Each structure stands twice: as C-alpha cells, then as structure tokens.
C-alpha cells in the first residue's frame, strides 16, 4: 500500500494520469453517439471553460464577480454581429472575440475593481442587469430576446465542437497552471489575502487586478463566441444573471482556488442533474433546486468544494498510509 502511495509523490505519475484521462475523454464521442449526450457533453464543456476562467478572478484573486455573463455576451455578440452583419467567417470572429472581451473587461475593471468584496459583488450584479436591460432594449442591433439566427458554425458537427472544446480546456488549464505557479499567481494570492499589505512590498495591485480581470474576460468572451457559433442563435436570454449564477456554482462547488475544481464543478453542476434525469424521471423539474441546494451546502459547509474534499481525503489517506 505504501508503494502505491509513494507513486503519488512523483510528478510523472500525475502526468500519466492526466494523459490517460485526456485519452479517455477524447474517446467519449465514439461511444456516446446519441445526439442528446453529445449536446450534453458540449454544454458541460462550455460550463467548464467559463468556470475555469472565472476561477482565476474569484478563487485566486478573491474578487466575487457576478458579471461573467456580460463578457460571455460580449464574445457572443462579437461572433453573432460580425458573422451576420459583415458576412465574415466565424473563425475570424472567434479570433476577434477575446480582443473585444479584453478591451471591455479592462474598461469595466477600472471603476469596478475599486470596490471590495460585497460591494464588488453587488456592483457587478447591478452591472449585469444593466447590460441585460440594454441588450433587451437595443433590439435593432442585438435582436433582444427574440434573438438573431443563422450564425455560422465554426465546425459542423457536435463532435467536432467537443474536440475543439477539449483543446481549449487543455490550453486554459495549462495557461492557468503556468500563471498561478509563477510570480503572477503569488501576486493574486497576496491580493486575495491582504490587498492593503501587498503594495508595501512593491506590488502594483491595481495593474495586476486589471490585467487579470481583462484576461479572464477575454477568454470568457472566447468561450461565449464559441458557444454562440455552436447554438447558431443568440438571444439576450443567454446572458442574464442566471448564467452568471451557473458559472459561479460550477466554480464554487468544484472548489475555487484550485486548478481542477471548476472541471469537477462543471461535471457536477451541469452534468449530474442531466444524467440523473433518466434515473429520477419526474424529478427533473427540481433541477434548479438541486443546483441551488448544492451551492448552499458547499458554501456553508464545505468551502473548499469538491476538490477541497478530495484534498482532505488525500490527507487522511496519507496519514493512514504512514501508520
């Protein structure tokens, strides 16, 4: 038993496990070919991508932004408007979406990041609702709730989208890992733990807060653009406070401040209710209840989320192995 536990001390073990999981995941569409399951996997994929981005802002930097759906929407409308009004390939829109996301994210960051914790949360909440109200009212441009149709797909099949997502997830995972383990990550943690203390050690908190927020908004926008291309349809209903809530739930439930947490969160928050749909037929109407209940339970009882739970478990196993 100790030998097995020893293996977990080596980094190379984790690399092998990771590669194995990736291969398994890549093979999923070969076995689960039903249209419904494919759609589910793609949906989970989008939740995971946005949660991974959001994790950087709330988990590592400690700023509970409730405006993620705004940037999701920025990317989405970039994709929709550029392809529909300018007749351009969705891939070009895809490349432009993180740029618009970054720009708007940076502009929003300037005033809002002056707020702390509760006021930041409420401020971003109000901002999301304001943007939603504007989107609904500008129906000539945005199509409001009825929406715009006919947005071209980046790639034709759901399966292809799935693979595209896997690529993006791996990129974001590794990008986040590099960032978090570098000096930038330490600066984010310093900001989260004591933002007033950090500048006394020469840390330009303002610059890093804004850059991080803008970066996260950029990738959230990218995800939004991809999502809209997948749906081929956009409506302001996609970008309400409810979508921010789902992203929040994925991150918090999975475990904020950890690399894999949002992935676990996405699987549980979005995936589990769908899979249980078959098992608990009539219970599907209680799905939001389920998500809400898990969120409340986690935030009050298990702040570390699922990932935190695993860490504790690993800690116990290690202690048990040492005996």
């Amino acid at each position, binding site marked *: 038993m100790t030998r097995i536990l020893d293996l977990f001390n080596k980094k190379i073990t984790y690399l092998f496990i990771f590669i194995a999981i990736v291969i398994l995941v890549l093979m999923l569409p070969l076995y689960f070919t039903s249209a419904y399951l494919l759609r589910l996997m793609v949906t989970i994929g989008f939740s995971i991508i946005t949660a991974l981005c959001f994790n950087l802002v709330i988990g590592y930097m400690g700023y509970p932004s409730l405006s993620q759906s705004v940037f999701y929407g920025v990317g989405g409308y970039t994709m929709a408007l550029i392809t529909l009004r300018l007749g351009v390939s969705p891939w070009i829109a895809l490349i432009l979406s993180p740029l618009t996301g970054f720009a708007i994210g940076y502009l929003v960051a300037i005033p809002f990041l002056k707020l702390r914790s509760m006021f930041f949360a409420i401020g971003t909440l109000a901002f999301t609702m304001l943007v939603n109200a504007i989107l609904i009212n500008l129906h000539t441009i945005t199509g409001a709730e009825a929406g715009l149709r006919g947005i071209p797909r980046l790639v034709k099949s759901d399966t292809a989208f799935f693979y595209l997502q896997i690529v993006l997830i791996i990129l974001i995972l590794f990008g986040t890992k590099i960032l978090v383990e570098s000096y930038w990550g*330490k600066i984010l943690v310093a900001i989260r733990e004591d933002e007033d203390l950090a500048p*006394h050690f020469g840390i330009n908190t303002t610059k890093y807060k804004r850059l991080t927020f803008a970066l996260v908004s950029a990738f959230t926008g990218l995800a939004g653009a991809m999502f809209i291309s997948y749906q081929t349809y956009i409506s302001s209903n996609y970008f309400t406070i409810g979508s921010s809530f789902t992203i929040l739930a994925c991150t918090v439930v999975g475990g904020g401040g950890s690399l894999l947490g949002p992935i676990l969160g996405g699987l549980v928050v979005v995936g589990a209710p769908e899979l249980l749909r078959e098992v608990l037929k009539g219970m599907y109407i209680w799905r939001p209840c389920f998500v809400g209940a898990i969120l409340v339970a986690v935030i009050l009882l298990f702040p570390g989320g699922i990932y935190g739970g695993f860490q504790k478990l690993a800690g116990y196993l290690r202690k048990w192995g040492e005996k």
Partner: protein
Amino acid sequence: MARQEGPILEIHDLCKNFGGIKAVDELSFQVKHGEILGLLGPNGSGKTTIFNLITGVYEADSGGIRFEEYDITNQLSYKIALKGISRTFQATKLFYKQTVLNNIVTAMIARTRKKLASQETFQRIDNVLEFTHLENVKHALASDLTHAQQRRLMVAMALIEEPELLLLDEITSGMSGEECNEMIEIAKKIRDGGITIVLIEHNMRVAMTLSDRILVLNFGKKIADGTPGEISTNETVLEAFLGKEE
C-alpha cells in the same frame, strides 16, 4: 553602500488633519544615513501617521517628504516600496494563511521575478530567516507562529528586498524582556549592515538602547530632538508624558 552626504529622509512642514484634529502639525526633521532614529511621544502624537504618510498610505495635506533624491510626497505605496523604503506595522500584518516561506517569497516577488527559483534566491531567503531567528519555522503557517515570531517575520519580510530605510512601528510590542533583547540585537545588526532605521517605540529601554538620536512628538509637533541622554533629562519631554520603563 557608500555613506552619503545629506539626509536619507527629509520631512519638511508636513501637515495631516483628520476632521479637525491635527495629527501632524507642520513637522520638519531629517534622518541621517546609517543612524537609528527613535520617534517617541504619547499615544496620538502622530508617530504612526508619519509612517503612513511616508509610505503613501495617507495623503499629506501639505508639506513634503524627500527620500534620497526623490520627492515621495503622496506617491503610490508600491512605488515608494520599490524605491527602497520598507516598514513593519503596529498591529501585526502578515499573510496569515500562508507559510513563513511563502510570506517572504511574496515580499520579494515585486523585484525578484525572473530568478524566483534560483539558488541565489533560496540562499537569500535562508539568510534572512536565519537573521531573524526563523529558520526553524520555515514551513509553518504564519498563523501558527508565536507573537514574537510573527513580529520578526514582519521584519524578515521588510528586509528581504534589502531596503535602504527601514521603518519599525513598535516592533517590540507584546514581547517579553528576553524577546526584546533578541529584537535589539537584530536591529543593531540591521544598522551595522548599512540600513537606516527609524523606530517608533513605547518601550523606553529599547528606545534608549537602540537610538542614536531621538525625536519626541506631542500633538503632531516636535518638542525635542537630541541624544537619548539629552532627552531623558529634558523637562518639556518629561512634562509631556511619563515614560514607561520596562
């Protein structure tokens, strides 16, 4: 570091009001290179406010602060820190949920980014831990340290980027006699290493032992400036407050 002509820090006509109360009242003084300057005075006489003004936490209402050749009046805190001024705080401020090691690394990342994982960096960290008698608790959480260890950790974090000026705000607060002695030795070694120190102290023994020169404040104004010997017999000072002796 070559000894330089002129003061390392110069405060002139500094004023800071808080809603009608003059915390700092047209204060002027200089700090010479390589000296230990003590800042004494009753509670509320403006000492910590001066530190906050120097490090950019407060904005001065009027007056100026010069550090070496720079005008640092109302500059941003992080820029002032990068110019070579470090400080500790009256109430212990640390990254409590992080280890001692992480605290020190965080204190140095602003300037030591690229070489973070180098041998040289590890050596510097070990040196500073040894210097502040914290080598045994390198991997302990800051929240698990004793009070005196936490105070010394603040000093370690202030020292890691080799400042030219170190501001110590009641660093011995809450320490026992022995711990104070330990701190006195550390402070002396800091000064011997070429770093100028300004220290706020309520502990008279520490203040008198360490300071080359003492400034006494009351109601935001300077009421005395001299050696420890001169100050302890100064009538105005004695009138202003009965000093606490260990």
